[in-house]
């Protein structure tokens, strides 16, 4: 009981159930359409609508831009349903400063696309299909994220 409370001070059930729901979402996409859905690619594929460069016009991105946007719209819808049914009266917000969101987003977006995936692409879909490059990627980004988060927390305290 104490160990559980030490590891999960806010409770553990919602984490596990939420994770299972995420897995069921990935499963539903695969069962119905056969598609493998990580999340970071949508940030590249959507640029194919307006950027003419060959990189963005390659089939891998251009051919998936519609369903990736539909998938992203689903994400917003699902979180909205959670807010409606189970969430608090006030909208969610964060106290992370704007510069950190912008710069962290930029470095994370660049890195995810260079490294062919993010927490969902490597962490769920890549590991879920037992691909060892994803295991290396997950361990790598976990380590650099922990170092960065602790360093930033220490500098701000």
């Amino acid at each position: 009981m104490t160990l559980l409370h030490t590891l999960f001070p806010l409770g553990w059930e919602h984490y596990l159930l939420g994770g299972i729901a995420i897995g069921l979402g990935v499963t539903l996409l695969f069962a119905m359409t056969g598609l493998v859905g990580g999340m970071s690619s949508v940030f590249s594929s959507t640029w194919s609508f307006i950027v003419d460069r060959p990189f963005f016009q390659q089939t891998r991105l251009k051919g998936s831009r519609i369903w990736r946007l539909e998938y992203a719209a689903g994400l917003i819808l699902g979180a909205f349903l959670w807010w409606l049914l189970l969430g608090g009266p006030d909208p969610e917000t964060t106290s992370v400063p704007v510069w950190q969101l912008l710069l962290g987003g930029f470095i994370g977006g660049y890195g995810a696309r260079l490294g062919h995936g993010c927490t969902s692409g490597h962490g769920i879909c890549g590991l879920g299909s037992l691909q060892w490059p994803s295991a290396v990627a997950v361990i790598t980004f976990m380590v650099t994220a922990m170092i960065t988060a602790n360093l930033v927390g220490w500098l701000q305290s």
Partner: protein
Amino acid sequence: MKIGNSLATLAAGALFGFGLAASTMIRPEVVLSFLRLQDFGLLLVLGGALVVTAIAYAVLPRLMKAPVLGGQFQKHPIHWGRSTVVGAALFGVGWGLCGVCPGPAIAGLGAGNWMLLYAIAGLALGALAQGLTSKGD
């Protein structure tokens, strides 16, 4: 048929987004508390999602000849190279700086977290910069 694909993709995304919200991954503070080793919940989220996904990827192609709406089950082999490690390392630095990764950045909007638009702008510009400077694929 096409509309069926769209609806299925939307529904799959909705389950994904519901899970991200229910597991509070749309709160950067919760993600940062994992990265600072104060709350290990993120491992349960990842573990839960991973087990379900691994079973689905292994079992569905054996149970069914093709996906319900047609087409074929994709493999999506993960590219391996120096860029995979360098990219992952950079992704981690960004993730550790803001506590937001692509899925939660998008899903969080559905729960009214407009601050995440800054993270989305950053992610989109980062992906643009990667594409514009890419020499290979």
